[in-house]
């Protein structure tokens, strides 16, 4: 199963600190020898200012060896730097926390800056101290503190580069402290920043072409957002919403096809909500159909049991293979860092999908057969099927015939008039809209042209 583990692929796209939880999870799954994982953890910690953590890891790894000298030096240095930075930042903080100042601050950043400079002699460099301190706190693991400072910094600073950097830092801090709501907010603003076409202000070196920089940022964002989306209660729907949008789908197809596993899982998981909730957008509702196409086109680049399950089910209609893949996929999902919690739910939904497809294709179904398809015993299967019939709209069409131990499904064909109604529905509305469009006075056209761009940008 280790070959399906994505940690190695994902970690390069994560921040050093974000990788710790992943490694910790790897210890639990025991795919890899514990020592190796611990070495990795140690190497990771060495590069941060979390000296104590690194030391403890070192002790675990080499119980009978001396702790290297460098750590104590590093520790002292970290403490002194911390104090220095804190003092610098405190000066700014004192000013900001003053209620008068808080009231005087407005939307306009430049004006604020001017105001602070005039009244409190606060310059941009001093404000940058906030950023430095926040960043330093982050390096030694004080994430909530870091988040605070970075927040304040962002409110005041006008430096685009540092602001973006602060965004990323704040997102990482929020993720690591587990404040999913804030993290989600942060994620959305960051996404806007990345998507807005000012790639020069993005993090990476400006020497690279802008489009490439944007692609990089998006790739990173996609990976980071996995933390948020699989922990936030609304996350899966939002994930589909974001990742199925053309820009992100393109990003995933070009630079990180393995994310398909997460989209696929999210799509399967969101089945239930999509069946009932009218609030979900079309993108979510048709996510499975869309994702199947994507899986098909990307098959040559990436496949794992989760994606092949969907492929076998909806492309090949090979129920046996689908069932086989499902057993594998279940384990993969269970062992995945992000998906682990959703194993049961995933299995449940996957069964629904199988039985739905099976029922639509078959007229008479042997219950034993279906149960086998679902990896269930005959009794369980029957219960499951009854529930299925009750829950879905098949109620009227499907009947269980216990004598022969089959389900009979009678699907009356759609009446012609129904089809005609379907086809012509909305025509009147569209014509009306068209009429309204025609009546628009011509001079309104130039602003009108500008408007769609704005609307599109906002979307």
């Amino acid at each position, binding site marked *: 199963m280790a070959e399906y583990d994505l940690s190695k692929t994902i970690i390069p796209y994560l921040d050093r600190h974000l990788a710790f939880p992943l490694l910790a999870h790897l210890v639990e799954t025991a795919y890899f020898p514990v020592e190796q994982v611990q070495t990795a953890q140690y190497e990771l910690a060495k590069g941060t200012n979390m000296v104590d953590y690194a030391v403890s890891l070192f002790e675990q790894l080499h119980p009978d060896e001396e702790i290297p000298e460098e750590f104590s030096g590093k520790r002292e240095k970290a403490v002194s730097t911390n104090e220095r930075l804190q003092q610098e930042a405190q000066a700014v903080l004192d000013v900001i926390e003053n209620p008068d100042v808080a009231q005087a601050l407005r939307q306009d950043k430049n004006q604020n800056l001017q105001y602070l400079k005039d009244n409190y002699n606060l310059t941009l460099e001093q404000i940058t101290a906030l950023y430095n301190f926040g960043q330093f706190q982050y390096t030694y693991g004080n994430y909530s503190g870091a988040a605070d400072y970075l927040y304040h910094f962002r409110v005041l600073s006008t430096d685009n580069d540092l602001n973006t950097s602060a965004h990323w830092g704040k997102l990482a801090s929020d993720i690591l402290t587990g404040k999913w709501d804030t993290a989600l907010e942060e994620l959305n603003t960051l996404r806007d920043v990345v998507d807005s076409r000012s790639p020069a202000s993005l993090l990476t070196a400006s020497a690279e072409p802008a489009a490439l920089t944007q692609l990089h940022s998006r790739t990173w964002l996609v990976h980071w957002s996995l933390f948020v989306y699989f922990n936030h209660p609304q996350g899966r729907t939002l994930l589909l919403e974001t990742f199925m949008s053309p820009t992100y789908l393109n990003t995933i197809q070009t630079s990180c096809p393995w994310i398909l596993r997460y989209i696929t899982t999210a799509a399967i998981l969101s089945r239930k909500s999509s069946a009932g909730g009218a609030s979900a957008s079309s993108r979510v509702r048709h996510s499975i159909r869309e994702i199947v196409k994507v899986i098909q086109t990307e098959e040559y680049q990436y496949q794992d049991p989760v994606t092949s399950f969907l492929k076998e089910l909806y492309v090949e209609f090979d129920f046996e293979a689908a069932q086989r893949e499902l057993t594998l996929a279940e384990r993969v999902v269970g062992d995945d860092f992000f998906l682990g919690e959703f194993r049961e739910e995933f299995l449940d939904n996957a069964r629904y999908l199988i039985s739905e497809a099976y029922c639509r*294709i078959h007229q*008479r179904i042997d219950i034993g057969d279906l149960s086998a398809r679902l990896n269930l015993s005959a009794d369980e299967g029957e219960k499951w099927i009854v529930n299925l019939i009750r829950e879905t709209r098949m109620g009227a069409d499907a009947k269980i015939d216990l004598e022969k131990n089959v389900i009979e499904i009678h699907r009356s064909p759609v009446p012609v008039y129904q089809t*005609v109604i379907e086809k012509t529905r909305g025509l009147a509305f569209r014509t009306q809209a*068209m009429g309204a469009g025609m009546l628009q006075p011509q001079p309104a056209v130039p602003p009108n042209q500008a408007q769609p761009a704005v609307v599109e940008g906002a979307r």
Partner: protein
Amino acid sequence: MSRFFRQAGDSDSESEESDDELLSSGDEDAAPPKSTAKPAMSRFLRTAGSDSSSESESDSDEDDSDISGEEGGEKKKTRFLRSDSEPEDSDEDVKRVVKSTKDKRVEEIEATGKVMDNALKINDWVAISNEFDKLLRLVQRQSNSAEPIPPFFIRTLTSLETSLNAALTKEKEAKKKMNATNARALNSMKQKVKKTAKEYEKETQQFQNDPEAFEREYAALAQPVEAIAVKVKKVKKAAPSDSEDDVPEDDRFTTVGKGGKAMQFTTDSIFKTLKLVNEARGKKNTDRGEQIRILEKLLEVAVTPYQRIRILLALVSSRFDYNSSVATFMPVDLWLSAQREVDQLISIVATDSSYSVQEATEEYDELLERTPATEKDGVVRVRGSIISFVDRLDDEFTRSLQNIDPHGTEYIDRLKDEKVLYRTISRAQAYYEKTSQPEPLARVVMRRLEHIYSKPDAVVTALESSLASSEIVPSVTLASQAATSSLIHALCVHLYKADNSLLRTRAMLSHIYHHALHNDFYTARDMLLMSHLQESIHSADVATQILYNRTVVQLGLCAFRCGLIKEAQSTLQDIFTTQRVKELLAQGVHQQRYQSQLTPEQEKAERARQLPFHMHINTELLEAAFLVSSMLVEIPLLASIDSEEMKRKAISKPFRRLLDFADRQVFTGPPESTRDHIMQASKALQDGEWEKCRDLIQSIKIWSLMPEAASVKDMLAKRIQEQGLRTYLFTYAPYYTTLSLSLLSRTFSLPLRSVTSMISKMIWNEELSASLDSPTGVVVFHRMEHSRQQQLALVIADKVNALVEQNEKVLDIKLGGTGGWGDRGDGGKGEKRGEQTQERRGRGDRTRGGSGLRGGTRGRGGRFAQGLGNQMSGQSSQRAR
């Protein structure tokens, strides 16, 4: 007079005595020419040469014992002729022979001179003018046979000049003395003499400075020339080598160039000569062959690298000049020597970094020798362009291939030269890498890439193997890269970084082509789509468009080989609907079927663009691949739709046309052409006879040209089975209520599981209204006949839908915004509107008969399937969000 010459000759040959002594031992062999030469001789002796011959006779008699200089000289010339042992006799004869040709001319010259002298005395300028013309002609002839200018001529010329000036002054003083014709003649003489004097300025000067030396020199040269004149062919061959031998020992070898100009083949005068040649270049009556010869000789005497570079530059250019007409190609031997010289040039500049050839340099004196020491920064920069030579060399190679009959052995022989050409290109690349000149480097890398991108691995290996022997090697070779694809990759990556967008585009296309050639369909497709070339290719130059077409076609073939039938069909579709496949691939000229006549210039340009035969993509194979994939896509689709309305919407028009045509045939014989095979196979497939279809398709001969033919055939057989099953189900479903799955699996020799899976797919996609009955293992069909009225209702609903869509589109275009009015009409519910349209589209998909087929390839494949057109713009607008 002649006596004088002989003596002069004597003195010269005396100087050569030292090495002549060696030769004298070979005197024994001299008889045969005696007989042949004699008749001509005797006549001559009687007329003019009596005294000189007798003298030489006595000479030889006298000096017999100690081998006089003259005799030695003669012996040297004639040693090739001699085959028997009578030295004296033969000597005599040969001497006479020699005199006859040379002296005849000399005497004529002298006679003319005498007449002129006489005429001068009586002041008859008309006669002088005539005689002077004659004299010039004679001298011209003399120089044509590569003999030096006789000093007599020079003397006459100078004396004429002085007397002319005297006459002119006299004329001025006493005007009425001369009649009109005479005056005119005098004037024209003045012009002529002026001109001639200018032409022979150099010689004249030499003569005036030291008449003695000049004459001696002439005589020395006259000797070998004499020999050449008479001797049989064999000797002729040897004589030049003789005279060449002379060059190193005394650098004063002089030859008369065209128009009587003396070319000094000495190290000192190289630049002067070079300048003369350069000035003559491009003039109307310049003999190009002669120029090349002069330069070749110059190259032999050139010593310093600077001289060699200069001469090579001129030489290669004049070789390329040799054939000016555009239509034909450079002779092969000329091309080969040009190639060698470019090689030489490159190795000079590559091995010695203190010399460099550049297109733009500072002004320098062409006549001065330059060395690294004399230059400011120690680098001698010479004006010239190696890259243009390489380009030209490559172009000429292509042109020769275009013009040689591709089915002859000559073509094959010519193709073998690609190896040396490739080596030259690679060496040029190495040179530019060393000197780091990015612009020409990119060009030369492109040239190299163009030689290998479309070739199979074996050929590339062969080409690359020639690089090993070269002393300068480019940074990227097959040896260093291990695989051809990584070699191509390295070259392409280099070009991607280049500034030139045309080169980038071409590199990209070549790279894609290479991937496609190696059955790497997905990479090739992704690269093509990501390059967004489809949008800009229309504005590219013709050659790039051709490359683009080739790439797309190769991609289609690749998809076909990989068994991706739908992709192959949609890729090849575009080019086949134009019905100008050959023209678009530059493999044949436009057929003038319609009134559109091409002007000769257009036609010529088009011919020049044609690809050489070995680069062609076999169009018959291409057509076979296209038609077979069309068959596999189209036949099930045809079977699935029942109304006439739908039938008109064909996926592949060319295929449908052929099929209709085949249907109309009353009698069908056994298949002959590839098309016949495919058409009959299509019919068999329609009838559900998949085995017959398979046999027909597999018996097409052209498959043998496809790499991995066997696996392709297997793949086709499998596809035919599957599509046969689908067609069968579509066609015969109305006649059954149930069908046993096992029967189907037996009939189509498919495993039960794949039959089930295929039927399930059809049911799921609502192509087939049926369902499976798992306990009994049958398909149950639910067929519902629509009444006429119901059918019409459906049709009208569709039509109304189309109408509204059309209206919306028109309004969109008119308002110029993309759905701007709609957004406002909905009150900003743009999102919802988008959903609606999407749903609408989704439903449309399902109602359209076979569109489920295509729906599967949506996404990236779909984008491709839609013919690279409007879908792309939609994509980019989405990206803009």
